[in-house]
């Protein structure tokens, strides 16, 4: 029992994930803003064929706007509540922790 416990605790101390892993909210936010813009533009003036196919719903427009809103939500959330820096570990003489971009 204690061997495993010790081994994993030791690895946890050396782990770099908490300090160096980037914030996924940036990626979700960015991708959905891009997708939202693309799909919204595609939906601005739908062809009659597209409209008919989608049961008369401006589906690209609505989906695009919803994706844009989700993307902005993630970016705003990240801005308002940035990832807490991990409780400073013993100063490691390596790179700066948590610059955010990994």
């Amino acid at each position, binding site marked *: *029992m204690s061997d495993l416990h010790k081994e*994993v605790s030791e690895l946890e101390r050396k782990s770099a994930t908490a300090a160096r892993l980037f914030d996924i909210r940036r990626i979700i936010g960015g991708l959905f803003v891009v997708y939202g813009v693309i*799909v919204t533009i595609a939906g601005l003036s739908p062809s009659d064929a597209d409209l008919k196919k989608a049961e008369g*719903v401006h589906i*690209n427009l609505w989906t695009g706007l919803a994706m844009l809103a989700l993307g902005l939500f993630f970016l705003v959330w990240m801005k308002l509540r940035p990832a807490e820096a991990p409780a400073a570990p013993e100063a490691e003489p390596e790179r700066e922790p948590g610059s955010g971009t*990994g």
Partner: protein
Amino acid sequence: MQTLAEGLRLPTNGLDYAILAIYFVVVLGIGFMARASVKTSLDFFLSGRSLPAWVTGLAFVAANLGATEILGMAATGAQYGVAVVHWYWIGAIPAMVFLGLVMMPFYYRSKVRSVPEFLLQRFDRSAHLLSSVLFAFAAILIAGVNLYALSIVVEALLGWPQWVAIVVAGLFVLVYITIGGLSSAIYNEVLQFFVILAALIPLTVLGLKRVGGWDAMSDSLTKQHGGDFMTAWGGTGIGDANPLGANWLTIILGLGFVLSFGYWTTNFAEVQRALSAKNLSAAKRTPLIAAFPKIFIVFAVMIPGLVAAVIVPKIGTPDSDLTYNDAIPLLMQELLPNGVLGIAVTGLLAAFMAGMAANVSSFNTVFTTDIWQRYVVKDKPDTYYLRFGRLITAIGVLASIGTAFIAASFSNIMSYLQTLFSFFNVPMFVVFIIGMFWKRASMKSGVWGLVAGTAAAMINYFWIYKGGIIDIPSDQGANFVSAIVGFVAGAVVMVVVTLFTAPKPEAELAGLVYGTESPSPDEELDEADRAWYRKPALLGWGAIVLAAACYIPYSF
């Protein structure tokens, strides 16, 4: 799953391919960006046990939301009707809540890195080795099933030759997991979760509009299939005939208890997401956060399935070219204009890759820490195991490409997966539950419980059911019964073996069994984790109540 119908080719254009291409770039980008955070083997296999709960929670649900699940559950909806909700509300939520509230403290505090490693701590090396090998084997098999299914769908929808789809998807998974490890897999799963929702929600809305709304759809299906089709429990009395081939007892015990608890609480591809959480509170909340989207996702797969059953009344019968698995691709073709169509194709491909990646990223952990490090090449420095983990990831992907063709003999993907789970996971759960709650359960009882449970489930399925000795109306129903048989056999054998063999010394059980002191003292709860909305008990019971309430409109 067999072949997808001809004539499902989607009218994709450059816009759709641009959307798909952006996604592939981002997938690789996540892998490369995560690379800097991988310093130890624990970073690679378990994200250094440092991710926040909302990330691990969404990854937990996304790891299960592979495309085989999405297409398979829509198929189940088209075939059996509203009864598909059982796979979610009774077949997932109680088990997820049980994992979070009851089992996670034992898993997380013991610092095990995998589910088999828990068996090593609680029982002995034979249970550990057996479960590790079985898991590694099953993970590659399932990754292969995913890849094979992907190639069929991509061939039908986009016209790519099967081998191209297999190689491209396989290589992308290989690259982003080999480089970024579990963090990369989990981040991609979180992203995939949102993309697949962006694909399924428009499809559901337009599908309902197409058939004139829920009530019109309900009337049409009731006329076509009878009143039970639109209810959850109709026709499930013991002895009644229903298309599912199961009664309320086998649904609750077989699906809701044995199969579901086996899958959600001991399948390492799921549990790994929770073990990578940053503290016990986050680990507990991982499956609980996942439970809420899980309750509602059923609507986004069931409704397209039902709509397809209205649009093509003969779907799944010899009179139609379309199989049940075609439900979602059919609706994509019929309803989505370019743009949203690209999102849907991207979501489907993302779901295939995530389903495969979840299995690869759990396979490499078990193979490295549980098999290689424990039995083959021991006591090397950590950098060696990190390197080996990367190597075995690549080998695992190549192996799953090789096994991609096993899935061909069942008509419904879910039957196939459930059959596998009923053989491998049923005995896992009985061994865990007895091991965690009965101190006396002996060291040797673990391995014998696993062997007996797997054997009993297989004998029941292949010999007694397939051999026609007893008559169960469907494969699904037989799965449920086999699961119950495997569970009972495993439990009986464990008790009997325990009576004749030595218990594990009590000191070695600390923190592993209910009623023992954990060696790691309870960490102080983070200030933020004290908030009422982060209380595990509230989240867990909230999910149970919500799932039960969801049954009400479909039960009377």
